[in-house]
């Protein structure tokens, strides 16, 4: 457990360095800062829930790695649909709570646009990462439950930071 934990921690410090690189901008716009934990958390959760479902289906023998597989396709569509449901609320919530607690410099439309665009990109990336990691674990005959969930969760955390900061650069 401990070596894995330390490697994952180092990966997370890597995403922290991305935040540090854009610290001046994040400190100028508190609504962007407010988006960080919820975007990281939602990206990690989308990945880990998908990973748990694919692992179980794999154990039960009801999943095949075929692009036309109904279960694989259905879960991928659900991940994108979940992101499209949640991230508008993320944007509205982050803007509203920041406005209530101290004022924001960005318009609600800008914050919602950043949240939804990040969420959509993250959902697609979460599907790609999860399916790839699950497939590799399956080929290497590792138990997908042990390996896939921590790896996917932390990779999605990092992608959450990178995509959020990247989207902010495009939108602002």
């Amino acid at each position: 457990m401990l070596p894995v934990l330390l490697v994952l921690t180092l990966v997370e410090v890597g995403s922290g360095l991305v935040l540090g690189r854009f610290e001046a901008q994040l400190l100028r716009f508190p609504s962007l800062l407010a988006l960080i934990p919820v975007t990281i958390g939602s990206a990690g959760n989308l990945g880990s829930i998908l990973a748990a479902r694919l692992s179980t289906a794999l154990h039960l023998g009801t999943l095949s790695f075929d692009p036309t597989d109904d279960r694989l396709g259905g879960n991928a569509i659900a991940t994108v649909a979940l992101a499209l449901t949640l991230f508008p609320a993320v944007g509205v919530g982050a803007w509203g709570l920041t406005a209530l607690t101290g004022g924001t410099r960005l318009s609600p439309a800008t914050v919602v646009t950043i949240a939804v665009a990040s969420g959509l990109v993250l959902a697609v990336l979460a599907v790609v990462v999860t399916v790839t990691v699950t497939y590799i674990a399956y080929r290497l005959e590792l138990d997908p439950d042990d390996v896939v969930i921590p790896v996917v969760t932390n990779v999605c955390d990092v992608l959450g930071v990178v995509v959020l900061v990247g989207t902010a650069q495009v939108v602002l």
Partner: protein
Amino acid sequence: MSVRDAASEAYREALPALSASLVGGLLAGVVLGGMRGELRAVPGLLVVVPALLATRGNVYGSLGARISTALHQGLVEPRIRAGDERLRAAVAAALANGLLASTFAAVAAFAILTTLGAPVAPLPVLVAIAVLAGVFSGVALSAVVVTAVFAGFRRGRDPDALVGPLVTTTGDVFGVLFLLGAVRLVLAVGGVV
């Protein structure tokens, strides 16, 4: 099962847990948004934030999973008063792992930022903040996880389904709140402003 059925089943099962952790993440975000003064006062602190938050999820999520497995196997009694040896060992191991990972994150961030020539607070300041935040949030999260898993188990709910959303929701909120507390404490004691 058609693609449509598979998608709607997956959607319905995931939405409640994701919504709960969304609320936790937003609350944590508001606290982080209000921490700008502290983030400016301690350069390098923002770099450690994702690692500290992830550690809470990684360590206490696995603590919850261990306890719920032990409950299923009948190795642990669902009573806190019982002072079970196995339960105490699991909590102690989680706290130790959490502290070690937090300290490691602070040291790694300091080393990398120093190498890059970026501004960074003194190492003892970063480590003190990481350790204090790790102790406070570790104790609080252990209490929440153990209590909730036991309560869920006694009411006949599957604790496995409870642990994930619970840890991601409370982990973010406690993680950021106790981080703020730790920074204020260290700045007050050290007078490093």
